[in-house]
């Protein structure tokens, strides 16, 4: 056999093997690059957790630099304000998962940002052994005032900066102490409406009369009434089908216009407006105010429960207009609604973290206020806001008055199947340097004007200086 045949066969084998190696190389490239993300993030892959265990978590601060959560030298986590800040800081435990900022801002606290992890070795230059600090929008004084105001009763408080959307306080009661959440986990996690439920964004309540500012807005916008029209309130309204709506405490308002009706929280007037608006226009109003939407971003809110518009009878329409029927909303959403009238008809997107700061002091992320929705016109917002000021100056919300501060609000006393009425107060206040909006609910607390409005006063006082 000639020599060239041997050479050809050697070459064939060589080419074949090199081809196999090339195929293998392409396959490894596919694994490392194309499938890399998926493999790296697989829940069974412990590498992410191991890398995180090497990093010291950053500190969580309030708007003035007060420490809300920090890491001790032994690596454990310490929450100086304990249960007051539980809904803000949340917790982070090996076996219990995480909640609050400890959960939502985990990557920032560990100093991992999305674009850095795939940079390879270069990311090690940027990755320190200490995570980033979070500067929140929380005002510790307002948070404390809200916490004290609830005084252990079940309920929730949300305070927003109406002009920016910054969350100034969010309190849910009963609360828990994040310092020993792991130890008490078993008993806490078994209670369905226990301390682990963040009522501000997860609690669903009938809004009661606090929905009336929106109904007033809808009635005027849709032209089913005018500011001049007067309603006759005999204390009871026949809504058809043999049902009727009554005023609370058997009051009788006699002749009222829309302004007066809101100030006195007249159920007869708003029940009438609800029936005039009908399913389609009610639905439109709820959609305008974002009740069918999620907020997006770092605030994860349970979506509202709306009545099934299109199938409602006149009774349900009237009930919906006074915040009853099957309507259920979160305190956060009511605070957003209040902020719309204090901020010219637009709702800013709520946010909790204003700055992410590296250990060396560089601000790597600064929150920019962002518009969420335009719910109504500026003129309409000013009109309703003006009505709501009357509520506080001469109506049902007088307990929220603070001398020298323009306060607007709306009380609510929501009937519910659990027992005594829920006490609501939503509204806004013009402080020296900012415009705040708030929503307060005390579960089964009774009358909103008597129980919830005083808490608003405390909060305004805490923020005034």
């Amino acid at each position, binding site marked *: *056999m000639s*020599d060239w*045949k*041997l*050479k*050809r*066969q*050697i*070459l*064939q*084998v*060589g080419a074949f*093997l*090199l081809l*196999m*190696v090339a195929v*293998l*190389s392409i*396959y*490894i*490239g596919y*694994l*490392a*690059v194309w*499938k*890399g*993300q*998926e*493999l*790296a993030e*697989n829940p*069974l*892959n*412990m*590498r992410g957790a*191991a*890398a995180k265990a090497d990093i010291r978590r950053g500190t969580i601060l309030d708007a003035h630099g007060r420490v809300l959560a920090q890491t001790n030298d032994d690596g454990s986590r310490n929450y100086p304000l304990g249960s007051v800040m539980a809904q803000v800081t949340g917790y982070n435990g090996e076996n219990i998962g995480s909640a609050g900022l400890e959960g939502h801002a985990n990557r920032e606290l560990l100093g991992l940002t999305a674009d850095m992890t*795939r*940079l*390879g*070795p*270069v*990311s*090690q230059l940027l990755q320190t052994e200490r995570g980033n600090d979070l500067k929140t929008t929380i005002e510790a004084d307002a948070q404390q005032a809200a916490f004290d105001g609830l005084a252990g009763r079940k309920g929730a408080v949300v305070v927003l900066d109406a002009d920016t959307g910054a969350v100034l306080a969010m309190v849910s009661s009963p609360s828990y102490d994040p310092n020993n959440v792991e130890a008490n986990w078993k008993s806490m996690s078994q209670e369905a409406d226990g301390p682990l439920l963040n009522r501000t964004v997860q609690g669903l309540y009938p809004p009661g009369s606090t929905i009336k500012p929106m109904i007033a807005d809808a009635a005027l916008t849709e032209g089913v009434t005018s500011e001049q029209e007067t309603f006759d309130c005999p204390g009871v309204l026949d809504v058809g089908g043999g049902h009727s709506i009554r005023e609370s405490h058997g009051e009788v308002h006699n002749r009222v216009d829309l302004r007066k009706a809101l100030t006195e929280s007249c159920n007869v007037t708003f029940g009438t407006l609800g029936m005039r608006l009908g399913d389609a226009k009610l639905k439109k109003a709820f959609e305008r105010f974002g009740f069918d939407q999620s907020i997006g971003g770092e605030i994860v809110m349970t979506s509202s429960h709306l009545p099934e518009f299109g199938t409602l009878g006149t009774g349900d329409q009237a009930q919906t207009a006074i915040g009853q029927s099957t309507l259920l909303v979160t305190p956060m959403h009511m605070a957003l609604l209040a902020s719309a009238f204090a901020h010219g008809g637009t709702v800013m997107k709520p946010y909790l973290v204003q700055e992410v700061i590296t250990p060396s002091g560089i601000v790597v992320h600064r929150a920019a206020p962002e518009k969420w929705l335009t719910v109504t016109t500026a003129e309409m917002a000013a009109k309703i806001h003006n009505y709501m000021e009357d509520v506080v100056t001469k109506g049902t919300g007088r307990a929220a008055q603070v001398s020298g501060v323009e306060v607007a609000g709306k009380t609510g006393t929501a009937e519910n199947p659990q027992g005594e009425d829920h006490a609501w107060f939503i509204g806004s206040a013009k402080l020296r340097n900012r415009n705040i909006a708030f929503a307060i609910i005390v579960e089964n607390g009774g009358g909103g004007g008597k129980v919830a409005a005083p808490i608003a006063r405390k909060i305004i006082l805490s923020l005034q200086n």
Partner: protein
Amino acid sequence: MKNWGLLTAPLGIFLCGMTILYLKMQGSVQKVTNNTLQDPLTYVPYLVIAVFLTIVIQMVVIRRKLDTFILPIILMLVSIGLVEIARLKPALLLRQLQWLCIAMLVMFLVIRLWPKIRQMLNYPYLLGIGCVILLGLPLLFGTEIGGSKNWLVLGPISLQPSEFGKIVLLFFLASYLSDHRKVLTLPAHKILFLRLPPLRFIAPLICIWGMAVLMFVVEKDLGSALLFFGMAVLMTYMATGSKSYVFLALAFMGMAAAASYAMFGHVRVRFDIWLNPWADPNGMAYQVVQSLFAIGTGGLWGTGFGFGHPGFIPEVHTDFIFSAIVEEMGLTAGLMLIICYALLFWRGIKGALRLKNTTEALLMAGCGVLILLQMFIIVAGVTKFLPLTGITLPFVSYGGSSMVSSFILLAMLLSLTKEQKNV
């Protein structure tokens, strides 16, 4: 003086790697006492010996007009392997360096004594018997280490005879096939579309295939089995160019695989893991799944040397060292390693094409094929391209037998480059 500069690259990689590890140790909170990495004086003497041996070997290579590219390529692989072992199992670095010195010494001896060693090619049947004995030893006296019963324990040292068996097999195949090329291509029998010579000529080949299957079934050593089988098939094709053998071999392997799948539990487990590792990711398929995680986490650039967590993979310093390298140094380093092997292979094939002696040409091409094939099998195994096998990544993995046998192969390859002019 040619290519001395190329030799500084591996040294640089080693020194850089050790410096990174040293600095990283300084920063860490808990100090480990008696740590090899903390005290460079413990390993520097061996490094000096290795550098000295490198210089001596390269001088011999230059004087004899051998291929001066091969040693730098291999030392690249060795230095990457050494730093990765130092990072994964610092305690084993010293042992590996000692083995490297021994392996280089053996390499030097093989190059010096090559004219005598190549006489072995004249006794094919003796080589065949030697090969059978070497491979048969663990079948009879083998000890099971790490799931494979392919180890011989002789007092303080444990050896893997198959590592040396493969070299003897290479000699045997080269010498037998070149002696019988004409007979083997004689189409004496025609069975269907196959052209086969008389049975007595292909008997030795069938014998090797049978050995390979035995190794897998009895010793649970799929890697060596695949390697031996692949060697036999590829060498036979190189010598004869007959596709009938390839077909016959594949059919033989297919039948053997099907039969052992049906008969043996551990074979079935291996294949089931390969087909669907996600069915039992924390149990039987743990190693492969962790290896895939390592490669995925590494991505294109890796996590950075010393910043990954390759420790999750059991046996990471031997069979799975490729995954650890990809995790920390990225796909880039992984492909660079593969390219080093491919370059070495190409130098081997290129050299073989210039040789006039059929036996030597086959031997030299065989050396290249053996190294590349071994790399292919283990890399394919840890990436789930093929079922997982338990062989080392030559020149990189931790292991004395593997290091010495790989350097013997290298010495053979180098010696055979003699007749070619340097490019």
